[in-house]
């Protein structure tokens, strides 16, 4: 799931300063699951914004809405009448949601409310850790299902580097060294031979973001 964290409210207030009537839109999918942009957070942020502006005598009217998923055109278009009534939109869905609204409503300023962090896994309730960089060409079968591109600080394909000690990464002492995990994993599956072949340089330019804007087209699904 996409994981995100709310921006500090004083930062949001800075760029919302010129507007007196906004639409605050959450999203019912990923940011709800990670407690960053669900209906509960919409209410809280709305109340916080109203109080902050009330305090400096510049009242703001905040309309609240939480569509089921903000990255679908239909859900975005559902907001069109409300958006006509407001001067700006603050979306606390992930970066995708914000830009979906921008595409459908070019004439109105739309602001993000959260910092979209990573595609992550839940370690325990309230703790999430990065797992995937969406590099477009998964190599998990080579490393026993543990991704060095997203979990190794130097994205090594033939790790570990000289700084891995006692299973921890030298850059973040509390983080596990991805390659130690890969080594242990392949050892238990007794597939260590996989680490002996050199993994060739990754073709970044073809599948990853380095190849420019990526688009998936499924002819079979196109209407």
């Amino acid at each position, binding site marked *: 799931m996409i994981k995100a964290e709310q921006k500090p409210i004083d930062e949001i207030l800075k760029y919302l300063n010129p507007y007196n009537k906004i639409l605050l839109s959450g999203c019912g999918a990923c940011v709800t699951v990670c407690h960053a942009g669900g209906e509960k957070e919409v209410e809280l942020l709305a109340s916080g914004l109203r*109080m902050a502006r009330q305090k400096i005598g510049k009242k703001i009217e905040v309309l609240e809405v939480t569509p089921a998923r903000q990255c679908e055109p239909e859900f975005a278009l559902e907001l069109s009448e409300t958006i006509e009534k407001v001067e700006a939109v603050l979306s606390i869905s992930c970066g995708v949601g914000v830009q979906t609204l921008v595409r459908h409503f070019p004439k109105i300023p739309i602001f993000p409310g959260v910092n979209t962090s990573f595609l992550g896994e839940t370690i325990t309730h309230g703790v999430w850790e990065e797992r995937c960089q969406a590099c477009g060409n998964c190599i998990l079968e080579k490393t026993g299902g543990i991704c060095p591109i997203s979990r190794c600080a130097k994205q090594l394909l033939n790790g570990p580097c000289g700084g891995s000690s006692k299973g921890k990464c030298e850059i973040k002492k509390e983080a596990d060294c991805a390659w130690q995990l890969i080594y242990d994993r392949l050892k238990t599956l007794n597939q260590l031979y996989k680490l002996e072949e050199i993994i060739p340089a990754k073709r970044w330019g073809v599948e990853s973001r380095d190849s420019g804007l990526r688009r998936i087209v499924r002819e079979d699904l196109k209407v």
Partner: protein
Amino acid sequence: MSSFDPKIIAFCCDQSGYPAADMAGTLKLKLPRNIEIVRVPCAGRIETIYLLKALEKGADGVLVFACYEENCQFLRGNLRAKARLAYAHRMLEGIGLEKERVEICHLATNSGVKFVETLRRKSEQLKKMGPNPAKES
């Protein structure tokens, strides 16, 4: 002293806060004016939005009366209330409101005296802090 009577919303957990309020009544202990007592089954029921909406809609201070730790009828209601208060404090700090406007006080069924004293102390403190600048006028 200004005649300003701070409006305090007191969320009282039905297991400790509310019976303590009743006990304070039976002991004829006098409370400051302008205090609203809200009865909830557990402090864990108090959503963070209640704390913020209270301040937004006109309260000058919010007090949450929860059970002592390891004495909660529902085992972790008080801990959840504390965590939500921390979230509210972060939000208040972000918008420049004093953290002391929202506070939690742990007590038990038979802490009538502590209930009244906390409310009196809070009322005095809010008198010094002045009315809530962020409330809807």
